[in-house]
């Protein structure tokens, strides 16, 4: 695509190479580039743009358009510069009379089969074909009209070559009339995204781009709508519908996606304050120019009519909402909270910070509770996702975060994916992983469900261990057992880097035959031979990297599994260099950041316990208030205390605990028992049905700040438009704090970051100036590592010696029995995100408009369930109903669903069992029964009625 804003964002034609420097001469200029670089890229790096159509630097050179031909001294003919690698001393001429004539001829042929409607074309001003016609000086097309692909009607009737536009994808259109068959889209789909949904159908003049098979359109094909083809298209053939509607954007701002924990960098492209499109930013270090359907296209929620833009208050949750001014809302909220503290005590109120808001906003919310409320009642949604990661990795390695950057996967030889579904949950990382797998790396998948990675185009797992939900610890321990008993561990690494005494104790424990794959096979359902083979592959296959997700953490033994994973990495010496490591795939855009910022009740920013007086002193001096040395309440404790009548008020920023937290009935009861629930969000979410104050939130497009992604990368979020609700979220928190007498006066989030840097050692050198200069930086970033830390534990573990911890498998108390014979596990889908508050309000619903229950054909047949039938899903905690989807992706005895839709409320089913160390709920294992039903359950109907009732709004008097 044309680069109309950022000079450093030019398309260099072919991908970068690494290698020894080679010097050549192009048009009389000496250029030095790495060996293997194309002549085209070398020229571009010297500032000389060789005309091109089929080349772009996101995909390998193809050499089909013949526009980039050059002359090279001593070589015959006119080689294509994109496919010709540089050689020392090469003398290249890019503008000889001969090549100029060839280029003109090539362009003339291209244009002879292209409509000349440039002025009304959606790509006008952003079209490489147009640019190249200009560059080669095309002034005339000598070919007379004949067969073509672009005229709807030929002289003798309908033009058989004309194919109408395919508008089936909600976000972009495919107009074959404009296609020059350069194959950039096909190659982007293959090389960048790894989906292989596109092909060139036919040959010669009949060649056409085709999505899927002969009868498919873009929507019915395998296309995942990542937008890589649209970005690669040099013409208007694949074009964002938003550009067709709104016109070519004139300015762009680099910012960070607000969906998953990959943290992709994007260019927000705008006209004035109207967002025209989001395109992935090539220099973004997490995504390297790639995107998924959510970040690329699903931003429409920001301007959705459901967004609440004025503050709302009400006396009781049965009342309708009253629109009020910000002042009145703040006064109301502050008075209520202070009133509750006066009546029920200082500790009767608390906050929940958001993993979707910025670091600065999260920091302020925890500061609000610690400094203004005077207690430590702060928690965050990481409680319900990756808190075991923090605990487990903290105990074993000494830091609560992943060890690698995403680039690391390019150096992995064996990748172990446990309890994660990257192609749906972390799609951009999945594309990078698949690229490495296509290059020959081996894959081991540990998951109860046959996720796409197990087998999809050009990717097949060497081993898939389909374990029974809840037996992670047994499987991970059995792998360790094989490695230890077969002597496959890296003893040198263990002796040097880990505590040897602890290792010998661990080795004795894990060598016990009761941990052997044979002994645990009945329990886990994983055939012993498969498990042994997988363990051997991981231990001996070269650089071994572990990536895991919520399928590891959201269990009663989540923390134990995390420790088991850390043990595996230490046993095999896979820590501290590229291509290895332990990598939690974090769920939300800033869940890493919200943990870093002291959102947990026992930890001040930087994971330092509140009981430590020296740490408290740092903040007490700066804030001028005293900090309670006692840890506060976790989310489940807050809800328990609310039901018990001792916890009365909650400020909940950007999280929908009613839908996302387990055991909905219990959450409902807890919220209903509170006297002041303040919800700060974009929409009247499910939690807001129980709120007394609603403070409108701002989107990531409307504020400055930073997000920290799963690789500890601190990325800038930049304001591209004014907040539609009037205030950025950090300003709203500040208003509330000041209404309660805090006297804060931040005028820009940069000042908040300065405060974080001043108080938190791992952020010591972070500042907006540094981020402006570097683009992004990975913490720890301080005097010891001023450039940040892409790889952790390189020369030694943060805690000193790596610590092996004994991982005893203890079965969860949640068990199947005659009444609830099946195990439910939950997950998510590519097009929807978390509770769906954002993605349900975009065209992404065309891919997933309801949650469905995946059930194995055997289990379905036993119950007389047909595909698409309404079924009732019941557990000890509650019941709901949804449609069934019969599939052998799940094993017999296991059912699976997503939790994106509040009409289903999958979490009414999940129980209040949780991780022993961190209270992370056991979402992934619930004993259930499934039976036919005729539609929504009584509970679903009541819930829907209550939600409608609760969302009534009385507008403010004019």
């Amino acid at each position, binding site marked *: 695509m044309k680069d109309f804003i950022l000079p450093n964002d030019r398309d260099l034609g072919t991908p970068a190479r690494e290698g020894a420097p080679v010097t050549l001469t192009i048009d009389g200029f000496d250029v030095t580039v790495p060996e293997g670089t194309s002549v085209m890229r070398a020229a571009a790096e010297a500032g000389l743009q060789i005309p091109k159509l089929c080349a772009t630097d996101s995909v390998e050179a193809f050499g089909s358009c013949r526009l980039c031909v050059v002359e090279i001294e001593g070589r015959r003919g006119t080689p294509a510069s994109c496919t010709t690698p540089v050689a020392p001393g090469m003398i290249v001429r890019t503008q000889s009379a001969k090549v100029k004539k060839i280029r003109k001829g090539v362009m003339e042929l291209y244009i002879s089969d292209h409509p000349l409607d440039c002025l009304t074309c959606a790509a006008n001003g952003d079209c490489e074909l147009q640019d190249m016609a200009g560059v080669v000086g095309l002034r005339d097309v000598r070919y007379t009209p004949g067969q073509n692909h672009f005229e709807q009607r030929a002289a003798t009737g309908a033009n058989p070559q004309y194919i109408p536009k395919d508008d089936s994808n909600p976000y972009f259109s495919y107009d074959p009339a404009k296609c020059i068959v350069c194959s950039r889209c096909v190659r982007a789909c293959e090389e960048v995204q790894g989906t292989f949904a596109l092909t060139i159908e036919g040959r010669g003049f009949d060649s056409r781009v*085709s*999505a899927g098979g002969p009868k498919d359109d873009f929507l019915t094909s395998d296309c995942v709508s990542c937008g890589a083809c649209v970005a690669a298209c040099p013409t208007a053939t694949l074009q964002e519908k938003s550009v067709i509607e709104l016109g070519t954007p004139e300015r762009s701002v680099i910012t960070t996606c607000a969906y998953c924990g990959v943290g992709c960098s994007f260019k927000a492209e705008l006209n004035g304050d109207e967002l025209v499109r989001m395109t992935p930013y090539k220099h973004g270090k997490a995504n390297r120019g790639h995107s998924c359907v959510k970040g690329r296209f699903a931003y429409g929620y920001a301007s959705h009519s459901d967004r609440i833009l004025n503050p709302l208050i009400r006396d009781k949750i049965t009342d309708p909402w009253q629109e009020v001014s910000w002042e009145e809302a703040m006064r109301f909220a502050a008075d209520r909270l202070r009133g509750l503290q006066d009546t029920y005590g200082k500790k009767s109120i608390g906050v929940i910070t958001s993993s979707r808001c910025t670091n600065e906003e999260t920091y302020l919310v925890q500061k609000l509770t610690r400094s203004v409320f005077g207690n430590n009642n702060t928690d965050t949604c990481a409680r319900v996702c990756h808190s075991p990661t923090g605990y487990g990795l903290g105990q074993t390695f000494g830091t609560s975060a992943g060890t690698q950057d995403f680039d690391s996967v390019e150096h992995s030889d064996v990748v172990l994916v446990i309890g994660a579904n990257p192609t749906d949950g972390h799609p951009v990382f999945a594309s990078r992983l698949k690229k490495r797998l296509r290059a020959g790396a081996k894959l081991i998948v540990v998951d109860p469900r046959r996720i796409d990675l197990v087998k999809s*185009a050009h990717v097949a797992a060497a081993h898939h261990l389909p374990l029974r939900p809840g037996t992670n610890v047994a499987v991970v321990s059995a792998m360790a057992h094989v490695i230890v008993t077969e002597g496959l561990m890296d003893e040198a690494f263990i002796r040097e880097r880990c505590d040897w005494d602890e290792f010998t104790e661990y080795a004795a424990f894990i060598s016990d035959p009761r941990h052997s794959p044979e002994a645990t096979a009945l329990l886990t359902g994983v055939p012993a031979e498969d498990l042994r083979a997988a363990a051997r592959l991981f231990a001996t296959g070269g650089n071994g990297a572990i990536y895991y997700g919520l399928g590891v953490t959201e269990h009663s033994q989540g923390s134990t599994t995390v420790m088991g994973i850390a043990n595996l990495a230490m046993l095999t010496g896979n820590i501290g260099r590229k291509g290895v490591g332990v990598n939690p795939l974090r769920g939300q855009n800033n869940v890493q950041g919200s943990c870093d910022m002291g959102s947990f009740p026992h930890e001040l920013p930087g994971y330092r316990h509140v009981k430590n007086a020296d740490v408290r002193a740092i903040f007490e001096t700066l804030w001028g208030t005293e900090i309670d040395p006692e840890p506060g309440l976790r989310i489940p404790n807050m809800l328990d205390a609310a039901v018990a009548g001792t916890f009365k008020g909650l400020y909940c920023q950007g999280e929908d605990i009613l839908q996302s937290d387990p055991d909905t009935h219990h959450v409902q009861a807890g919220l209903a028992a509170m006297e002041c629930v303040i919800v700060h969000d974009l929409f009247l979410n499910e939690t807001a049905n129980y709120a007394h104050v609603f403070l409108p939130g701002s989107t990531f497009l409307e504020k400055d700040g930073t997000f920290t992604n799963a690789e500890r990368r601190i990325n800038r979020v930049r304001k591209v438009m004014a907040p539609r609700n009037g205030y950025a979220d950090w300003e709203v928190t500040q208003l509330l704090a000041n209404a309660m007498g805090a006297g804060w006066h931040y005028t820009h989030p940069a000042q908040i970051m300065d405060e974080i840097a001043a108080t938190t050692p791992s952020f010591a050198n972070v500042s907006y100036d540094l981020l402006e200069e570097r683009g992004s930086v990975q913490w720890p970033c301080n005097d010891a590592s001023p450039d940040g830390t892409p790889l952790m534990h390189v020369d030694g573990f943060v805690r000193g010696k790596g610590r092996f911890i004994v991982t005893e498998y203890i079965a969860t108390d949640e068990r199947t029995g005659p009444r609830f014979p099946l195990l439910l596990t939950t997950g998510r889908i590519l097009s929807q995100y978390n509770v769906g508050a954002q993605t349900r309000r975009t065209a992404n619903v065309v891919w997933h408009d309801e949650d469905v229950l995946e059930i194995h054909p055997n289990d379905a047949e036993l119950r007389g369930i047909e595909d698409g039938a309404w079924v009732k899903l019941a557990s000890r905690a509650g019941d709901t109903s949804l449609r069934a989807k019969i599939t052998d992706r799940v094993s017999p005895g296991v059912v699976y669903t997503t939790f994106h839709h509040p009409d289903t409320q999958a979490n009414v089913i999940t129980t209040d069992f949780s991780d022993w160390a961190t209270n992370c709920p056991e979402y992934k294992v619930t004993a259930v029964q499934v039976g036919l039903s005729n539609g929504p359950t009584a509970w679903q109907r009541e819930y829907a009625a209550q939600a409608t009732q609760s969302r009534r709004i009385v507008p403010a008097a004019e």
Partner: protein
Amino acid sequence: MTRATHPETAEMQAIIDRHLGMEGPLLPMFHALQAEYGYVPAAALPLLADTLNLTVAEVHGVKSFYHDFRDHPAGRHILKICRAEACQAMGANDMSARVLERLGIDWHGTTPDGDVTVEPVYCLGLCACGPAAMVDGRVVGRANSDRLLAEVGA
């Protein structure tokens, strides 16, 4: 010579699986399917994709590149007439016009009784004996319309 029936999934899969051990098995699989059914059934594309760990798009791309792979059943006899330069110089155009007229069909067409399908081909490597044609896989040199019609029994 071919069975133009509705192919069963299991049967197609069996044909596909017979070629699994080969290097580069996709084209042989297409040939085998076409040999069995006279065309490559659309329902075979997902089977091929799944077996070879490709996508339907890729399989479709390969199949559509080769004009020889049909997507619908052909007649009992397949007559391919060369339309390349050498045969045109020897009167192939007139000859094929007469054949098509007698059969009452156009290029790629099949007679209503399902007897004959006529397809163009661009060079059979038999330029010395033009005009050339191919009847059910057997090349015919120095062809004329009567002979070709007789060959296909029309």
